[in-house]
């Protein structure tokens, strides 16, 4: 897209016209530098009372840095923040809370070992007696339609409830501005709807919301104003209700985003490559999820997606299929061979490949070079990486070059350590490393988690292309947009039960949402 990059000067005029007596927060020329990187470059932002203000941008555009300065967890290197017309120094989160700025974090900031009321007490300056606070929590949470039991231990609660705790904690601080960092990424569509109602109510009461999200549909639906960041600078401000998700996306990226489609090529379905038969496993730790009677046929040529809210057994299912969790032999069948009791190397030799969710630490060893990380998953799959117990650095290096080129992995110097890559680039690498093998069966958990739009499109297209070339692909994902984009069939996992995989054409968001919220479980229990 030939979009002209608007300068900060334009944003300035936008600010001047927007700031007035209703202005709550007025940031002027905020700058933050980390080493050589300018994370925020003279950012101007105006938030008015009663406004749901979207902050958009790709990963690394500087959104989190900006809101951390509002919440006092980072100190700006330049510029100033005006709160209700007065210049303020927000030295720490307690100061932000005193001003009336609350924050709901992207990665929950809850203490798992503590109870709901203890978690909330920690965020309040004067929590008072625990029993009084418990009563207040019950009243406020019921009042906003987000009921909570104050004595539950957080570790026992599902993600949707955990977010409720964050929101109620924020509400009890009686804030005038609530900052929300990707609040819906872990919610079912129904839970998200409930959140939107709460936000609209808060806005009506005069509270302002600064809303960070990658989900442009919902930004268009609930936000009144949007500020778009790219490379640390404000590039545009707009009224999202007058835009389309596609136009918002191109403003963020600065170019058109390629759209991916599974339906453009009809799949040629072949025989079953991977079969799960009544797969069950007990929870390995008190905080893990048990798998119950999971059955699924994955056939050559198709992409099957497993939707579900985080923490419903996705990780455990992945471990069971990859061989990290040993099972009875006939629970997992690869190309007709029972292998539930076989290890991951045996399964890889059967042309299966696995990409786990956590790319740094599980998918790649942080302190090892990329070429060494390649050897770790491909040492015994006929790639000539190991000769008589010696590692062939030459072959591993060649492979690293090939993956880098095919999957556009960007790095500052040749063959760096895995930890030095940005999240998106490392994700392209760990997915690319397995795709490069042209595996017969590919299992991938959260293929594009935390990856920007351009890289996500590349990875999704590669997954579809692999399926169309005759392989079977199983994608576990929490991103419904992604699932509807690439899947031929969709199953839903809920509390360790898997629903029947149905053709994408028969599914819609509402149905998937109902299955996520326990429908899959009911189906599984009947079966």
């Amino acid at each position: 897209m030939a979009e002209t990059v608007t300068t900060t000067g334009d944003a300035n005029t936008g600010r001047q016209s927007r700031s007035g007596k209703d202005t709550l927060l007025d940031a002027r020329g905020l700058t933050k530098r980390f080493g050589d990187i300018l994370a925020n470059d003279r950012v101007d932002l105006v938030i008015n009372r009663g406004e749901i203000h979207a902050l958009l941008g790709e990963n690394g555009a500087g959104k989190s840095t900006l809101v951390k300065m509002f919440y006092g967890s980072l100190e700006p290197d330049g510029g100033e923040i005006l709160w209700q017309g007065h210049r303020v120094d927000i030295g720490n989160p307690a100061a932000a809370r005193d001003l009336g700025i609350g924050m709901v974090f992207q990665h929950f900031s809850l203490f798992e070992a503590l109870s709901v009321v203890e978690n909330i007490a920690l965020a309040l300056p004067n929590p008072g007696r625990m029993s009084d606070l418990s009563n207040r929590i019950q009243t406020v949470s019921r009042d906003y339609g987000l009921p909570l039991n104050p004595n539950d231990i957080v570790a026992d609660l599902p993600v949707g409830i955990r977010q409720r705790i964050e929101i109620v904690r924020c509400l009890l601080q009686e804030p005038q501005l609530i900052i929300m960092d990707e609040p819906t990424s872990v919610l079912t569509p129904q839970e998200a709807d409930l959140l939107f109602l709460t936000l609209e109510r808060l806005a009506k009461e005069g509270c302002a919301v600064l809303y960070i999200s990658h989900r442009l549909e919902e930004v268009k639906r609930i936000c009144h104003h949007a500020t778009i960041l790219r490379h640390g600078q404000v590039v545009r401000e707009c009224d999202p209700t007058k835009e389309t998700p596609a136009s918002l996306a191109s403003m963020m990226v600065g170019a058109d985003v390629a759209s991916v489609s599974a339906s453009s090529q009809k799949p040629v379905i072949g025989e079953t490559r991977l079969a799960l038969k009544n797969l069950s496993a007990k929870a390995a730790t008190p905080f893990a999820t048990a798998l119950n009677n999971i059955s699924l046929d994955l056939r050559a040529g198709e992409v099957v997606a497993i939707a579900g809210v985080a923490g419903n057994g996705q990780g455990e299912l992945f471990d069971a299929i990859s061989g990290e969790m040993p099972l009875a032999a006939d629970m997992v069948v690869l190309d007709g061979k029972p292998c539930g009791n076989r290890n991951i190397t045996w399964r890889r030799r059967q042309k299966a490949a696995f990409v786990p969710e956590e790319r740094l630490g599980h998918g790649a060893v942080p302190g090892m070079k990329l070429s060494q990380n390649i050897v770790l998953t491909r040492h015994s799959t006929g790639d000539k990486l190991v000769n008589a117990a010696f590692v062939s650095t030459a072959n591993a290096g060649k492979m690293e070059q090939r993956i880098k080129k095919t999957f556009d992995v960007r790095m500052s110097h040749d063959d760096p350590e895995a930890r030095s890559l940005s999240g998106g680039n490392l994700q392209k690498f760990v997915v690319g490393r397995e795709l490069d093998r042209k595996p017969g069966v590919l299992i991938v958990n959260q293929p594009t988690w935390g990856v920007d739009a351009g890289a996500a499109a590349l990875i999704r297209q590669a997954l579809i292309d692999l399926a169309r070339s005759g392989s079977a692909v199983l994608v576990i994902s929490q991103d419904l947009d992604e699932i509807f984009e690439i899947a031929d069939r969709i199953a839903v996992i809920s509390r360790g039960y898997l629903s029947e995989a149905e053709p994408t054409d028969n599914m819609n968001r509402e149905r998937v949402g109902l299955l996520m919220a326990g429908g899959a479980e009911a189906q599984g229990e009947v079966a």
Partner: protein
Amino acid sequence: MFEAVLLTIITAATPLLIAAIGELVVERSGVLNLGVEGMMIMGAVVGFAVANQTGSGTLGVIAAIAAGMAMSALFGFLVLVLVTNQVATGLALTILGIGFSGLIGEAFIGIPGLKLPDLYIPGLSDIPFIGPVFFQQDALVYISFALVIAVAYFLFRTRLGLVLRSVGDNHGSAHALGYSVIRIRFAAVLFGGACAGLAGAYMSLAYTPQWVENMTAGRGWIALALVVFSSWLPLRVVIGAYLFGAVSVLNLHAQAVELDIPSQLLSSLPYLATILVLVLISANRRLTLVNTPACLGKPFVPDR
């Protein structure tokens, strides 16, 4: 006879209890200080030396606490400010303590020491049997019980205790909420050092009122193990410390009556019995997991 046995059990258990309750607070804040043995032995030698020079047991105890705190301040500076590896630093602290205490104590070997007086609690100490056992002890025994109750109350009933537990559970979140992780941990480490020093003073001023090189003989390590096996719960530390004390005392009596059991096996009994019982009571994995400080031993560097 039974009375005497009970008395020796209390004497054997008290240093373990004091050192362990201090380390429990340290670990609840997310710091693993393996230097308990080193801080304890420094407390023992400094306590003995000061009591010997001044003739005051009280000054000896205060000096022992100060010595333990000085050692822990060194540890805290290294692991919290310079973010060194906690395991390696703790081990180094123990080695330093053992060596340095030997150097300080050289002049005091063989000198008869000063024993802390027993305090008779008026009224209570006259109760038959219970009185002599529980209410005619030296001050440190009473302090050890007061410490357990105070620590349990602090951790689970006060706001500061809640903050300390939150720092040990998730230092990133505690920092995001605006709590000073480093400062809270430093305070906890200092408290642990004070307790270890006090436990050392008990060794050289009450248990055996003299200075012998390496006289703590691994009790710091046992205190460390008790903390873990008791799932970081103060009352369970009492059970562990007294059980260990009891079995080691009974073991001495068993050796005295010359049972037909190899003495090596008898000597290992306290360890075996303590591990067995604490493993059994920590069979409730959920309770254990909820009470395990999730950030234990992990370095924290604020992103500012």
